[in-house]
C-alpha cells in the first residue's frame, strides 16, 4: 500500500522531471569543410519555455535547429531530447523522437504537389492511422482554424501568400501535438503586419500548449515579443543568454552593437 512518503517522493520526482530540460545542447561543435559554424555552444530549454536564438546571418542559428531535429550531426558534443542523446541514432529510432517535435522551416517547405489540406494531413496519414479519414479531416480543419486559415484549404502552396504558407507550415508542425516546437525565422520575408500576426499566433499557441520552443530569428522585436529568454550567438557560441533586460544591461561590445543596430 502506498504511503504518504511514497506519494510525496513520486510527486517530487515528477516535479524534478518537469524541471529537467526538454532540449539540452551540450558543448556542440559543427564545421562545414574548414568553416567552424558552432564552437562549443551550450543551451537548454524547459517545458513551457520559449528561447529565442539571435545573431547575425551565418552564425549557425539555423544549423543549431537542424542539429536539434537531427537533420545534421554535430562533430562533437551532445544534443539531448528528454535526456536522451540523439546523435548517431538510427533513422527509425530518431523518427520516434521526432514525433514529439514540430519544425517550421524558414520557407515553410510545403509539399508543392499537395494542397494546403493535404500538406497538413500528411503527418497524420503516416502516424495516426488509428484515426478515420473523417477524424483526420476534422483535425486538419481545427488546426487550420487555429492558425487563422479557414478558407483556401484546397489551394496549392504556390497559390497562397508567404504569410499563409508560414501558417500552413505551422499547422503542419502542430499536427502531431508536439512537445517541442522549433521555428526557423518565422517572420523572415514577411511584411510588418504579417510578422505581428505570426508573433501573436505563436504566443497564443505557446500559452495554450505549453511546449518547449526554440525560435531562431534575427528580428529582435519578434524575439522580445514571443520569447521569455534570448540567446545571442557570436562566432559560434552564446555571447549572452538571459532576458531582454539582461541584454540591455550587458557591457559586451558585440551585444551593445547588435542592440544598437536592431
Amino acid at each position, binding site marked *: 500500500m502506498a504511503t504518504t512518503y511514497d506519494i510525496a517522493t513520486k510527486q517530487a520526482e515528477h516535479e524534478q522531471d518537469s524541471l529537467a530540460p526538454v532540449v539540452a545542447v551540450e558543448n556542440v561543435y559543427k564545421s562545414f569543410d574548414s568553416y567552424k559554424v558552432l564552437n562549443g555552444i551550450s543551451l537548454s530549454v524547459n517545458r513551457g519555455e520559449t528561447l529565442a536564438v539571435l545573431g547575425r546571418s551565418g552564425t549557425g542559428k539555423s544549423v543549431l535547429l*537542424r542539429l536539434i*531535429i*537531427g*537533420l545534421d550531426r554535430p562533430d562533437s558534443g551532445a544534443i539531448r531530447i528528454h535526456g536522451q542523446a540523439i546523435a548517431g541514432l538510427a*533513422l*527509425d529510432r*530518431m*523518427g*520516434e*523522437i*521526432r*514525433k514529439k*517535435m514540430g*519544425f517550421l*522551416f524558414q*520557407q515553410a*517547405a*510545403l*509539399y*508543392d504537389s499537395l494542397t494546403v489540406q493535404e500538406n497538413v494531413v*500528411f*503527418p497524420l496519414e*503516416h*502516424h495516426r*492511422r488509428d484515426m478515420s479519414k473523417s477524424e483526420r479531416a476534422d483535425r486538419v480543419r481545427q488546426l487550420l482554424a487555429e492558425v487563422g486559415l479557414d478558407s483556401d484549404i484546397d489551394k496549392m502552396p504556390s497559390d497562397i501568400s508567404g504569410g499563409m504558407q508560414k501558417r500552413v507550415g505551422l499547422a*503542419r508542425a502542430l499536427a*502531431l501535438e508536439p512537445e517541442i516546437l522549433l521555428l526557423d525565422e518565422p517572420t523572415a520575408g514577411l511584411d510588418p503586419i504579417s510578422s505581428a500576426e505570426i508573433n501573436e499566433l505563436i504566443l497564443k499557441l505557446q500559452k495554450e500548449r505549453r511546449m518547449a520552443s526554440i525560435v531562431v530569428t534575427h528580428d529582435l522585436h519578434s524575439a522580445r515579443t514571443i520569447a521569455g529568454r534570448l540567446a545571442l550567438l557570436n562566432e559560434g557560441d552564446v555571447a549572452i543568454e538571459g532576458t531582454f533586460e539582461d541584454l540591455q544591461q550587458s557591457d559586451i561590445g558585440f551585444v551593445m552593437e547588435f542592440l544598437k543596430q536592431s
Partner: protein
Amino acid sequence: MSDRGFPAVASLNAPLPVRRPEHPSAVAGYATKLFNGFFEWFGSLGIFSWQVLRAAVTPPYEWRELIRQLDEVGSKSLPLVAMAGAAIGVILSLEARYSLSRFGAKSMFPATLVYSVIQVMGPVVTGLVVSGRVGAGMGAELASMKVTEQIDAIEASAINPYRLLAAPRILACILMLPLLTVATDACALMTGWFAQAMVEPLSFHQFITNGFNGATFSAFLPQTFKTSVYGLIIGLIACFQGMRTRGGAAGVGRAATNSVVLASLFLILADVILVKFILVFFS
C-alpha cells in the same frame, strides 16, 4: 585596375594570355581529387542503397506511393517506348532485308528480326528511352524537393524519406521495365513485319511462325527480365542523384542530367555483364 579602382574590362581585341604549363603537383592534386571523388561517389551510393533496402523491407509499406509510381513509370512511358519500338522495327527491317539479300538468306528475315529485337535491341532501347524520360523526371523532381527542403520536411515529420520516396520509385522501375520491354518488342515486330510486307507479301502468321520457329522460352525470357536490372539502375541512380542535390536551380539541372547520363552509362555496362551471364547460364 582602372583609375576608379574597378577591374578594367578586357578588350575583345586584346591578345589571349599565354597559358603557363600546369605545375606537376597541381596535376597530381587534381588527379587525386578526381580519384577520391570517384570512390566517394560509389561509397555514398552504397550507403544510399543500403538505406533504401532497409526501408523497403520494413513496414509500414507505402503501397499508395508505389501504385502512383507504377503509373508514372509504366503507363506514362508506354507511348514513348511503343514509338521507339515501332521505329527500330522499321529500321531493322530495312537493314536486315538489304543485308540478308546480299547473302542470299532472305528466308532468315523473320528469325533475324525476332531475335534481334527480343534479344538485343528491344531491351537496350527500352532501357535507354526510359532512362531518359524517367531518370530525368525522377532526378529533377527529387532534386527540386531537396533544394526546397521538402525532403528535410518529410524527415522532420518522422517519415523515412527512403521508404516514402526512393523505395517505391526504384521498385516501380524494376517491375515496369520488363513490361515496357514487351511493349517495345511487340511494336518493333509489328512494324518490322509491316515494312517487309510492303515490299514482299508475307502474312503476319507466317512471319511469327518462321520467326519463333524452334525457339524456347529460355531464348527470350532472360533477355526480357534482365531489364529489371536496368530498372534498378535507373531508379537507384535517379533517386540518389536527386536526393543529394545541392545548389538551387543549377543543382536541379545537374541532377537531372547526371541521372540520365550515369543511368545510361551503367545500363550499357551492365548489359555487357548480363549478356555474358545469360549466355553462360541460359544458353
